């Protein structure tokens, strides 16, 4: 049976990733394949997966749908990979998925890096497993946090005008949250300094300390925060930056002042990459230092290594006789119990393809560290639909020794 499984030999498992390495999107996400490779190297150095070494082949799609489609097809047809991991982006991956006929060939499409709820549709994407919670979930959690912590304040939403924003808008609607003004939806690339200043000037006239939710990429968060600095409005608002756009390292690198970042609230399902007390974080940071030389350890690297660790567990759970169907059913049946750095529960089941099922609410300090809001870690868990947001008592599984999974 083994010979029939593409990408698997007695000594090797070939995996593929198509993601942006260059271009604007490559700035943040270009580190992902390298970080995953670093983790796999670590595993390979420690015996691999049942003796097989993992070989991750990375192809640059520049965040363009056409390239994603051809690169993914290349991975499947030319590189003959066993499974795909960590694909990035909605427009890109939705095209790549069909073009490379992943469904037809039953190619596992593991731990994709997008929160677009469309990917939860098992009939359309039967082999896909998300890792991020959906954008809608995040919106619901934010709505809940606002309700709990800032009752009576005006609220505003600034969101990117695509599936990212529209999923978010839908989530707030589901949660029954209405904003004090129509959401500001901006096309990608249009939130210039001038536009941000105009938007904040308008919002600045609101009495009280309104909550501004930023549902966009990190560079836009930075642009808006810098506009607030200019207009002396940083403390006028309570800032709520979505998980995609709140990487503190990046914000600082983009020139946002530490005092501005101090107090920004965000949601996350992962521990903070700066939190070296967390065993996972520490382990991953060690691996990074050894196998990913010269790359600073940050949230992107952390998330990528975490996905790699999930991948190793999925491969192990599928058993020594590795097949594509085997991996898919292994995640469906055992995925919820995989060890991971995530602080919220994993939701994999035969019916659900969503990975993390919730968020904890964090607040950045001036050093860019994310600490639990209000000093106490509260984990909110929910679904993408109409389900309520509940506080979860989830305790994550302890890390496998040295970060090397031994599950089966």
């Amino acid at each position, binding site marked *: 049976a083994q010979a029939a499984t593409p990408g698997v030999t007695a000594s090797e498992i070939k995996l593929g990733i198509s993601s942006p390495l260059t271009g604007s999107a490559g700035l943040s996400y270009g580190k992902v394949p390298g970080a995953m490779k670093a983790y796999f190297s670590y595993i390979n150095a420690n015996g691999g997966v049942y003796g097989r070494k993992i070989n991750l082949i990375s192809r640059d799609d520049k965040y363009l749908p056409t390239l994603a489609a*051809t690169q993914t097809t290349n991975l499947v047809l030319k590189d003959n990979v066993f499974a795909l991991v960590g694909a990035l982006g909605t427009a890109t991956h*939705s095209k790549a998925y069909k073009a490379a006929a992943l469904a037809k060939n039953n190619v596992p499409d593991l731990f994709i890096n997008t929160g677009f709820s469309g990917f939860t549709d098992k009939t359309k994407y039967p082999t896909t497993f998300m890792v991020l919670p959906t954008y809608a979930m995040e919106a619901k959690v934010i709505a809940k946090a606002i309700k709990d912590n800032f009752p009576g304040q005006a609220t505003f939403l600034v969101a990117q005008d*695509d599936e990212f924003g529209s999923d978010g808008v839908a989530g707030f609607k589901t949660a029954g949250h209405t904003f004090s003004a129509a959401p500001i939806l901006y096309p990608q690339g249009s939130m210039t300094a001038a536009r941000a200043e105009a938007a904040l000037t308008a919002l600045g006239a609101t009495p009280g300390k309104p909550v501004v939710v930023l549902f966009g990429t990190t560079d836009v968060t930075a642009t808006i925060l810098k506009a607030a600095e200019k207009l002396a409005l940083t403390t006028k608002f309570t800032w709520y930056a979505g998980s995609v756009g709140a990487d503190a390292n990046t914000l600082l690198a983009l020139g946002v002042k530490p005092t501005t970042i101090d107090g920004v609230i965000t949601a996350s399902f992962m521990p903070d990459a700066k939190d070296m007390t967390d065993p996972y974080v520490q382990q991953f940071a060690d691996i990074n230092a050894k196998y990913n030389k010269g790359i600073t350890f940050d949230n992107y690297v952390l998330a990528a290594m975490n996905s790699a660790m999930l991948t190793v567990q999925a491969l192990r759970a599928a058993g020594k006789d590795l097949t594509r169907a085997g991996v898919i059913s292994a995640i469906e049946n055992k995925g919820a119990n995989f060890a991971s750095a995530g602080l919220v529960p994993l939701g994999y089941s035969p019916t659900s393809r969503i990975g993390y099922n919730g968020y904890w609410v964090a607040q950045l300090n001036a050093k860019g560290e994310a600490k639990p809001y209000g000093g106490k870690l509260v984990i909110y868990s929910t679904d993408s639909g109409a389900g309520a947001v509940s506080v979860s008592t989830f305790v994550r599984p302890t890390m496998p020794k040295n970060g090397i999974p031994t599950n089966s």
Partner: protein
Amino acid sequence: MSKQVSTKKRTLLFVAFGWVLLLLGDRVGDLELYQGSFVATYALAITSIILLTGYSGQLSLGQSALMAVGAYAGALTIFNAGLHPIIGLFMAALVAGVFGLILGLIAARLSGPYLAGTTLALAISLPTLANQFPILGAEEGIVFDVGLPPARFGEDFSQYKWFFWISALASLIMVWFIANLLSTKYGRTFRALRDNPIAAELSGINVGRLKVTAFAISSGVAGLSGGLLVMLISGVSPSAFPLSLSFALLGGAVVTGLYNLKGVILGGLVLVAIPEIADSLVSRIGGSEGFITTLPGFLVSALLILAVVFTPNGPGHLIKRHHKK
């Protein structure tokens, strides 16, 4: 302008070429078929540039936007109106052609950098509009599905072969149309107005109208190739038509040689093969992570420049010159 190929000969040539492709299609793998489909699609897009720039002398930097118009028109026809994919591809060409006609009427008085600027602005603004109309499906876009190959072709007939048949056939037919058109009156008049608009005007040619005609036809051709492109990636979305696509096609047109259609396949081939080659070259050389990620872009760009420097009129001209000597 040496002796012209007669229409009959050209038709035979196209049929023979189609036959060769058909045979070839049975002998190569899915990946080659898939890449071949892109070659055909890009060749068609380059055809639209050769018609517009090489023949009628107008420079458009917005071919990607026109392709997007065709792509959306096709997708709506198939997905929303539920019509046959062939009608979808037809609509892709037609709607883009009409769009080009309207744009051409607006831009008829523009030339050189002014037209280039206008089309460039179009290329960055048009795709962002797609997010504004829910019917266009935002970033995830609309599925563009030509369906499975007919059952009578058998089990082995893969989706990729089906793609290849459709894109190669559609491109062949369209290029045949354009080649016919350019070999007689229209080609002649396009070139005349390009070379000397005043003399053309005095010879009774309505230069303004003809420029618009060229723009509309070119848009139609681009629209069809847009339709084919999204067929290959099985769905349309705004980001599938970035400005860089327009630019890449211009590069392809230069490699092809702007003045005749003979090399369009080569242009398409280059667009598909060069990044591929650069990628595999780099992975073979190896090196630091930064080196590996930046080198392919460097190589592709460098090749583009070399092409412009050494064969600005296309390899066809090189070969011809050698023959003469």
